[in-house]
């Protein structure tokens, strides 16, 4: 097996997680990942050994996503919160349901550009500079989107959920 095997598996798992959180719909997320991988195969020559493979893959996925959003602009997603929750595989306990539901709703209501940045930073652990380069905006823009996104989520979760939130390990 090539030396990329395990590394690539790790990155693809991250891409799938990010896509799921970004779109909150399993079928759409899988479509996005598949299209991104197909693009990566076509553009494999552009990857340079020794550079950041994860950033390379995320950048491709981001570009595919932007194109999809553009072409779907006329028909917005109609996914209810309940149907999304049913797709979650977390065997959530009763006390966690509220937080999960609130976070899901908060994500739904965020503008796409804030959701992207929040998830890339908070879920995928990317550096601000990496995010800036990936989505092609100045770092100040990344910071303001992150800040607005986080505060919006905070406001949504503030209604009773924040106390329980602190118990999440």
């Amino acid at each position, binding site marked *: 097996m090539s030396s990329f095997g395990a590394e690539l598996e790790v990155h693809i798992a991250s891409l799938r997680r990010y896509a799921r959180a970004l779109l909150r719909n399993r079928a759409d997320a899988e479509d996005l990942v598949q299209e991104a991988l197909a693009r990566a195969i076509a553009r494999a020559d552009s990857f340079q050994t020794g550079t950041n493979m994860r950033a390379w893959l995320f950048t491709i996925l981001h570009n595919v996503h932007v194109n999809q959003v553009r072409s779907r602009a006329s028909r917005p997603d109609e996914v209810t919160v309940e149907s999304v929750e049913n797709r979650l595989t977390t065997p959530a306990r009763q006390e966690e349901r509220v937080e999960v539901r609130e976070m899901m709703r908060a994500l739904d209501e965020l503008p796409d550009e804030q959701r992207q940045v929040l998830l890339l930073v908070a879920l995928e652990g990317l550096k601000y500079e990496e995010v800036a380069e990936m989505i092609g905006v100045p770092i100040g823009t990344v910071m303001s989107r992150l800040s607005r996104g986080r505060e919006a989520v905070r406001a949504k979760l503030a209604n009773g959920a924040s106390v329980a939130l*602190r118990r999440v390990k």
Partner: protein
Amino acid sequence: MEAHRVKDEELHAYADGQLEGTRRIAVERHLAEDPEAARKVEDYRAQAALLHEMFDPVLREDPGPEVNELATRLKGRLAGNDNRPAWHARPLTRIAATVVLVVGAAAGGYFGRGVTAPPQQRQTLQTFANEATQAHRFYTSDERYQVEMGAEDPGALDNFLSQRVGKSIFGPDLSKAGYRLIGGRSLPTDTGAGAQYMYINDQGKRITLFVGPPPAGKETSFSFAQQGDIATFYWVEGQLAYALIGRLSKDELMGITKAVYDDVKAGPKPREQHQQPPQQQPNPEERKPDQAQQPDQQNGVQPVSDNHHKPKDS
């Protein structure tokens, strides 16, 4: 007053572990005085933890035949792209390298050895830590595949991983910190094969120690990184780079890091001998000299209280 002022974006950078040096200290001081700011940071981290809880299960899912097939094809393409030619043999970098060498040669007279490093050496220790953290995220989230080889026979595990890494390595004993070794796996990094040791405590919390070839080769002191709720300490010791990773507070992880560091410095111990009081050893001469508490040493001239003082480099 003004110097004390902490900007909003610094709170984010602090929460994300992307703030370094004096500003980190300034933020910590600020948080101690400003409960509202402290709550913000706590909420940001709680958001990250909740997102992980909600979406990490995706990592455990079978990606499905389509993705698997695409992954295999991409692997093939990248491997074809990669066959690990030396950096100077790839066409594009060869041109770049020529330029660097020419410039380097031209500048040599003025700047001596200040020639640009080849791409592989630009790989930073931070990248190593990132890779180690990614591997932690991935393999601690999937209980089915968490280790490639179990720790039932720790010696066999060490041998297996040493062989992969190409250097003698071992999984330190972290039982004092409450963690036991459950196994390990070998993983590729950009600088060569690395090894991940996985530990678990009684609460089921996992930490991993990632050992691999260091990017630049010089020793460094501890660095700390926080990505979401995952904390990482990393450093270079001898010919290897280490990263210790866990969903723990900085202080908790620091304590374990010290245990790892001391154990690595001391070198591997024979594992069978744990918790054997010296009196019960029938043949003291069979014990390793650096472990034996030799009586004649105690009334020697030097008041050496520390018995793992080793003259050899380790």
